[in-house]
């Protein structure tokens, strides 16, 4: 396996409030040193509560926001500080699918115009008929009918809109896709359609996907590996089955046990987390999770625990090796 995207100690701090000249400004540490590598052809999911920095991670990897520190390499090339012009060739190869299928489509454009936009930007040479054909092919590929081409987004259902968003992202044949909660705004009966579509397209087009989500059932189904984020840091990374069956970080244990199981006969004991995720402006010292952790020791407040290998392909950022954690599935 080779890495398609490598993320190295990525940091993104947003200034909040503060004076006119930026003195005494506070920082939101949305990303606080994230290192991940995304292998070619895999689906890597990022899970975590809101405020964990998972959306910021997706946007920063695509250079839609500029990182404060750290490095992003795409196919071995450092794209961390490329100018917008220099980034353009990369834009064809890395794309984004949004959570809200309504907000991400321009309400003034028809489906055809929306899906053709990437061609207008990047494939200047091809003729109008050629472009129309490619758009029609793409719409068929994502399961839309030809007559949808001249409809406006508001005339489509949520699921159809999301298909349009996927068509736009894939028409330039990218190798890397960031899918930011692509099903969570959809009706339940539509979610499975879109999950299947993403998996099918991934196989057909050889995509690598960074899948950002909070629905653990969907994540468990779709991903090869999962990274768990908490307050701007990755606390655990492992293959999907491993993470569900033998989590090594207390936060993973709590997060996964909070997911409701759609079976009324199963009553499992739940690790209930106390309180909310702390503010990323002023995160706790040491391990950021220690304030809500039932296994926390005094040492946890002093050192930021590094991500270290705890098994094959399994990384965890917890200093306690001596605790038995509850698996979310047997």
């Amino acid at each position, binding site marked *: 396996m080779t890495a398609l995207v490598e993320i190295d100690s990525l940091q993104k701090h947003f200034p909040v409030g503060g004076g006119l000249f930026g003195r005494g400004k506070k920082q939101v540490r949305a990303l606080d040193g994230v290192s991940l590598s995304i292998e070619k052809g895999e689906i890597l999911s990022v899970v975590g509560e809101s405020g964990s920095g998972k959306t910021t991670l997706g946007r920063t990897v695509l250079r839609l926001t500029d990182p404060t520190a750290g490095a992003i390499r795409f196919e071995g090339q450092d794209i961390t500080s490329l100018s917008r012009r220099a*980034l353009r060739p990369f834009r064809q190869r890395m794309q984004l699918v949004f959570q809200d299928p309504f907000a991400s489509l321009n309400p003034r454009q028809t489906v055809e115009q929306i899906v053709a*936009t990437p061609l207008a930007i990047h494939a200047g040479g091809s003729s109008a008929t050629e472009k129309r054909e490619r758009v029609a092919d793409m719409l068929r590929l994502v399961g839309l009918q030809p007559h949808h081409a001249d409809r406006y987004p508001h005339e489509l259902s949520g699921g159809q809109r999301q298909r349009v968003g996927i068509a736009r992202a894939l028409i330039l044949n990218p190798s890397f896709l960031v899918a930011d909660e692509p099903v969570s705004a959809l009706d339940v009966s539509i979610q499975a359609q879109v999950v299947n579509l993403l998996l*099918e397209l991934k196989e057909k087009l050889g995509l690598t996907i960074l899948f950002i989500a909070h629905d653990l059932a969907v994540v468990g189904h779709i991903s090869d590996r999962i990274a768990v984020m908490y307050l701007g840091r990755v606390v655990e990374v492992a293959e999907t089955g491993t993470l569900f069956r033998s989590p090594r970080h207390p936060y993973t244990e709590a997060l996964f046990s909070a997911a409701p199981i759609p079976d009324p006969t199963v009553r499992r004991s739940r690790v209930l987390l106390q309180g909310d995720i702390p503010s990323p402006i002023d995160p706790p010292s040491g391990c950021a999770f220690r304030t809500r952790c039932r296994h926390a020791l005094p040492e946890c407040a002093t050192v930021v625990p590094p991500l270290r290998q705890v098994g094959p392909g399994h990384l965890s950022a917890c200093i306690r090796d001596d605790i038995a954690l509850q698996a979310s599935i047997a």
Partner: protein
Amino acid sequence: MSSSIFDSSPGDSNPGGDFAAREAAIALPPRNTALRRFCRHRLAMAGAIIIAILVLGSYLGPYLIPYDDTFIDIMQRFAPPFSGAHILGTDELGRDMLARLMMGGRISLAVGFTAMVISMGIGILVGAIAGYYGGIVGAALMRFVDAVLCFPSIFLLLALAALIEPGVASITLLIAATAWMDVARIVEGQIRGLRERDFAVAAEALGASDLRIVFRELVPNAVAPIVVAATLNVAKAILLESYVSYLGYGIQPPTPSWGNMLNNAQIYLTSAPWLAILPGLFITLAVTSFNFLGDGLRDALDPRMENH
């Protein structure tokens, strides 16, 4: 991309039978076009028709009546309307009122329309730049807009008009110079809100240039308030031209405009009231019509306006 991947139509991997045919059997909602929505707006339709009549009348009318607007019929001074050969009467020099109103309409409407186009151009450009880039550039531009806006436009207009030689072109430019700030503010607010939306991020993720994002993605979404501002600006420009001409700094006689006809009429207000009433009526008619048109367009141009 090989064509073989397009062979099947995926996404519904489970046997749903011929569900697509079943679903297609359900009729789609009727298309609700902007034109149809506009036509339902009665006042706006009335406004549009009146504007069309005023424009056609002003430009074609003079060819259809037997009098020239500068022809002085000294025997027929102060002829009241509907009393003789001059349908709308004559003025103090015996010139045909209808001809003068038509020629005045040409000037007033042309000034209003041109001033609108120029002010919209400046306003959209300034507003879009300020709204899209924000930060120091945006703040500086918008503070400048506020500063200009602080100055009452009529005084600004009079001060400027006193310095230059009045003429149709210069008056048009002056009016445009006092009318673009509202547009800039509207556009700035709209663009600032829209640029944070996901579809703008999507365009950026595709590597679109700033120019493309602003003018292809964002501005079309602000078209409703822009068009409304445009129609209101025509109305405002016609009014401003009338003010300035009425005060004697605008379009200079003998070229007629509705404004300077009004100015001319004030000494005869009691003896020949139609000299004031007629141009006043046309100004009111044009301004109100443009306002109604703006209302209707605002509703019609929003594709999300539902069919009820």
